[in-house]
């Protein structure tokens, strides 16, 4: 496996370029990346299993905490599946409010991404600027929902808080301010030569590759794949809103930046339409605690791409099975392709460009061999990993003794 001029460096689980614990093992020849092995699972908490022991309402708050950046995506996706099972008709006004929060979330997430991307290419001023402007959105989210992150606005059958005329005014005012800032960032991204030079041609993913590797969200759209659940399979209030699916043909990190920036403008226009057209009426309906038996699959366009939740119920107040497929899991395979034959220095920005969220991704996956699935006990798995590391020359036994 190791030939003489191949060189492996580990990055992670704790590394300044990574915001979450994950680990990459990079095979290098000189500065050139030959291949990347990605190891996930540091963030695996066992949420899907925990859902089976909690009621639907509790699960909603638990699933919201899969990931704090796209928390509303996960809770809405789950709630939609449960509502489908219970066959309830959610009031229009509630759907509008959900969509409104969803778009705020997209804006805050894309702003956050822009800052992190700036940081990864050594442009810290951009980080500070975007995070300052992001606070405008955070303030609105805090007034509308009561919390800055993990909004907890959904409930099965609707939403928990209404919006008033005062809120509407505040939102529209803030949108003015944001529009000005977003246009400024678009101007920077399209005219600033350092950014264009640094990002162009980095992390290429062609149209064919994006389709083959099943990329989703802005990663796919930057390779010209016009995939957007909001358009393809409208949920909440998206069916009544006019908006465009932004695509780009650059196929590189620069394209992904442009797509996200233009999506910000789309989000602003969506929010304006929502606020101006929000219907009157109740914001939630009562749903019995026991959900009829059945199964449902729900799709949702999170800021990072398509999020899928599968719920199976057995007629009690607790689900039988919940399965989550977060967008980063779909995109992470593409990262291997993007990094191949690139320079080592490109790695942080290429990884950041899919806007990875590893707390979303760290779900349990069982590998099925031809003989069928196998189950490994936790302790066996742990022993196996310790042995594996020992074989590769990493041994913590001494250290563990010292720490014990």
């Amino acid at each position: 496996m190791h030939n003489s001029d191949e060189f492996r460096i580990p990055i992670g689980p704790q590394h300044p370029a990574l915001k979450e614990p994950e680990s990459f093992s990079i095979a290098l020849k000189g500065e050139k990346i030959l291949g990347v092995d990605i190891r996930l699972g540091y963030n695996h908490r066992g949420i899907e299993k925990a859902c089976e022991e909690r009621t639907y309402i509790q699960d909603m708050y638990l699933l919201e905490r899969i990931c704090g950046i796209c928390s509303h995506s996960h809770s809405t996706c789950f709630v939609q599946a449960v509502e489908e099972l219970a066959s309830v008709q959610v009031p229009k006004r509630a759907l509008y409010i959900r969509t409104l929060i969803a778009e705020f979330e997209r804006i805050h997430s894309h702003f956050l991404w822009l800052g992190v991307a700036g940081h990864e290419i050594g442009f810290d001023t951009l980080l500070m600027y975007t995070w300052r402007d992001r606070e405008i959105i955070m303030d609105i989210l805090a007034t509308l929902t009561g919390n800055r992150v993990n909004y907890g606005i959904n409930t099965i059958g609707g939403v928990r808080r209404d919006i008033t005329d005062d809120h509407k005014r505040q939102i529209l005012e803030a949108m003015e301010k944001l529009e000005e800032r977003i246009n400024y960032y678009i101007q920077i991204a399209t005219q600033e030569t350092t950014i264009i030079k640094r990002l162009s041609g980095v992390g290429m993913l062609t149209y064919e590759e994006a389709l083959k590797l099943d990329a989703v969200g802005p990663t796919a759209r930057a390779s010209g794949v016009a995939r957007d659940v909001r358009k393809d399979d409208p949920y909440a209030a998206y069916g009544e809103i006019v908006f465009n699916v932004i695509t780009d043909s650059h196929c590189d990190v620069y394209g992904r930046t442009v797509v996200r920036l233009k999506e910000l403008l789309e989000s602003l226009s969506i929010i304006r339409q929502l606020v101006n057209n929000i219907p009157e009426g109740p914001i939630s309906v009562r749903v019995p605690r026991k959900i009829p038996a059945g199964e449902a699959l729900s799709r949702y366009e999170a800021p990072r791409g398509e999020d899928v939740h599968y719920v199976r119920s057995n007629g009690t107040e607790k689900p039988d099975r919940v399965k989550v497929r977060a967008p980063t899991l779909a995109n992470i395979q593409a990262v291997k392709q993007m990094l191949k034959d690139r320079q080592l220095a490109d790695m942080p920005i290429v990884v950041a460009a899919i806007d990875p969220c590893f707390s979303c991704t760290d779900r349990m996956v069982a590998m099925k061999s031809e003989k069928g699935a196998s189950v490994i006990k936790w302790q066996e798995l742990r022993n196996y990993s310790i042995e594996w590391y020992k074989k590769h020359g990493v041994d913590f036994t001494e250290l563990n003794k010292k720490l014990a």
Partner: protein
Amino acid sequence: MGLVDCIVNWGRIKSPWILHFNSGACNACDIEIIATLTPRYDIERFGVLLKGTPRHADVLVCSGPVTFQVEDRLKRIYEQMAEPKFVVAVGTCACSGGVFKGCYNIKGGINTAIPVSLYIPGCPASPKAIIDGVVKLLESLEEKEGKE
């Protein structure tokens, strides 16, 4: 306390360097920690600087419950920090396990793996709470200095 120690401690109080480690958090506490470092809340005005390696850091800021896979790493990072070192647990799940208590891959709060000096509750802990916590930590250091 000798003169050199006095100066070192003064430096530590005026400019504590922190290392941020996510031990299985949902990211919300992490983005709130970063928000605390950026212009609106700007915790750098207390001299707090984010560092990339445990060997440079005085304070380890942890978010999230301890998952079994991350436990060894967390202990190693703590080992690598130079004395005196402090650990701040940010968020309810770092304090006690929070919503994830009882999940099969969760050991518990940060204090089940390493000693913690300061707990900041909240899900997620808001930037204001984080600033309040950090200031309290610095104050307690100052008091300690006064006593010695």
